[in-house]
């Protein structure tokens, strides 16, 4: 019963965020549409680069053009989900910590986790890339004649969730630095998220194993699109198990959770020095 109430509460909070997003779209339509257009152009520019190379060279490293399109569709879906659920700096958490805004969340009658989970939901103005990604995915699947089964769809959802978990966990892991150095580390999540976005669209097929393994372990950009796409195409690379992204997401999120809690404990004892007494930010 308690779990059911909690789920209902979370859904209601998502509903509140969605209603505020719709209100913005209706009241400031011109600006909201400009924002939607910027999101679409920005993502298409990133993924089209790799796709255009694939078109020009009839594929990259053993992946044909349609397989590259499938991979770019996967990348676009994750970008779309990132924007749809992370529009409130709730994934760029170093900004909230670094700006001393975490206290604002402490005042709400909700747990920090629930607030951060639900506060950035913008399905109307932030959902465009998700829709574009789904359309690209359907086109790629048709061109590849992929046999779609229930299990395949479950794996697709599981991989996308794992990719999102890795993005969020890594952002929270590096953002923990902002608890200790709020000014210097305020934008560190941007370096971890946007800084590596282009790299996450690279098809790693054909590259030396050391590069592939490094990009699946130390800097997991290979798990953002390349590895899960190949698994969904039935060709898990490097003899890795197809459960690897799920295991990696679990381990990384446990580490991030531990480090973030440690940082949070430090923060609640020391506080933030970002605001001067008359309200301006240092």
């Amino acid at each position, binding site marked *: 019963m308690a779990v059911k109430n909690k789920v209902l509460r979370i859904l209601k909070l998502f509903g509140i965020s969605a209603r505020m997003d719709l209100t913005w779209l209706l009241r400031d339509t011109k600006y909201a549409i400009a924002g939607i257009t910027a999101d679409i*152009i920005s993502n298409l520019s990133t993924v089209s680069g790799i796709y255009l190379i694939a078109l020009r060279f009839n594929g990259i490293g053993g992946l044909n053009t349609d397989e590259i399109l499938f991979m770019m569709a996967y990348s676009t879906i994750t970008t779309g989900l990132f924007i749809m659920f992370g529009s409130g700096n709730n994934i760029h958490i170093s900004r909230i910590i670094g700006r001393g805004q975490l206290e604002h969340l402490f005042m709400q009658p909700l747990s920090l986790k629930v607030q951060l989970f639900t506060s950035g939901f913008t399905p109307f103005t932030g959902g465009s890339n998700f829709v574009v990604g789904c359309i690209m995915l359907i086109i790629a699947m048709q061109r590849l004649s992929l046999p779609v089964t229930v299990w395949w769809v479950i794996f697709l959802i599981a991989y996308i969730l794992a990719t999102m978990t890795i993005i969020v966990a890594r952002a929270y892991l590096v953002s923990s630095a902002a608890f200790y150095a709020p000014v210097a580390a305020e934008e560190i999540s941007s370096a971890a998220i946007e800084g590596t976005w282009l790299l996450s669209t690279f098809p790693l097929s054909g590259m030396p194993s050391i590069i592939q393994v490094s990009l699946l372990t130390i800097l997991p950009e290979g798990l953002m699109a390349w590895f899960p796409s190949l698994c969904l195409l039935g060709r898990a690379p490097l003899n890795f198990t197809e459960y690897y992204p799920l295991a990696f997401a679990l381990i990384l999120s446990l580490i991030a959770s531990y480090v973030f809690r440690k940082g949070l404990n430090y923060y609640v004892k020391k506080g933030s020095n970002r605001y001067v007494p008359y309200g301006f930010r240092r």
Partner: protein
Amino acid sequence: MFKYMKTAGMSCLEKTNGGIIYLLPDVLIKICTLIPLIFLWRVVMTSGARAGMNMSQMLTYTYVSSLLSDMMVIETAASGWLSEGVLMKLYGRPMSVLGQLAAQTAGSWLPMLLLFSLPMALLAPAMGVSLKPASPWFLLSLLLCISLGFAIDFLFACLSIKLRNMSWLISRIRTAIVSLFSGTIIPIGLLPLGIDRIMKYQPFACLGGSPLSVYVGSADPGSVILLQLIWNMLLWPVTLLVFKKSQEGIVSYGG
């Protein structure tokens, strides 16, 4: 000139105020992007397709593009400063506003040139990349690229002034368009479906892609520099005129 040099120096120091350690994530990301990008092009070029460039040229193109990335596509603080209210401060100083922005931008390049470009240039032979320029005209082409980059950036700043609080959106759209059409990530000549023939004459192609193609010897320096000169002569008067008119419309709240 001294005061602009001083502004550039202050801008350089500002980048390292928090300590060099806080620049390291950006340096690491640049390295971690460059190395796979080099291998990506190796994979692509070994497929045997004709690309108008050989592998050595392609690797040099990519490497130099990364080393000089700040100069290939100029991004001043103008648009950001507009929304943060900093732009207004520039009017209180006895110096040209555009000059201050240019000096501030040039100064901000130095830490990354020292921390990333210089070490990576020294490591280039180990990566199998030759950094020997094919033509000395590269330097002139680079200067024209930087000059045009400032003109284009100031025009986008004017657009931000005109559209008031849309500077973040304009910045996103501009970054997306310029990164694709400037040839800094993918050389214009490699674009498929005949897009390259149309794209090579647009002003963005005279940014990073032009000096890079002269550097690796994949384009005739004369025609590249002529096109860059034409775009500079066309866009600078427009930029100065539009900026002069836009100044009256600047609204800054501070951040």
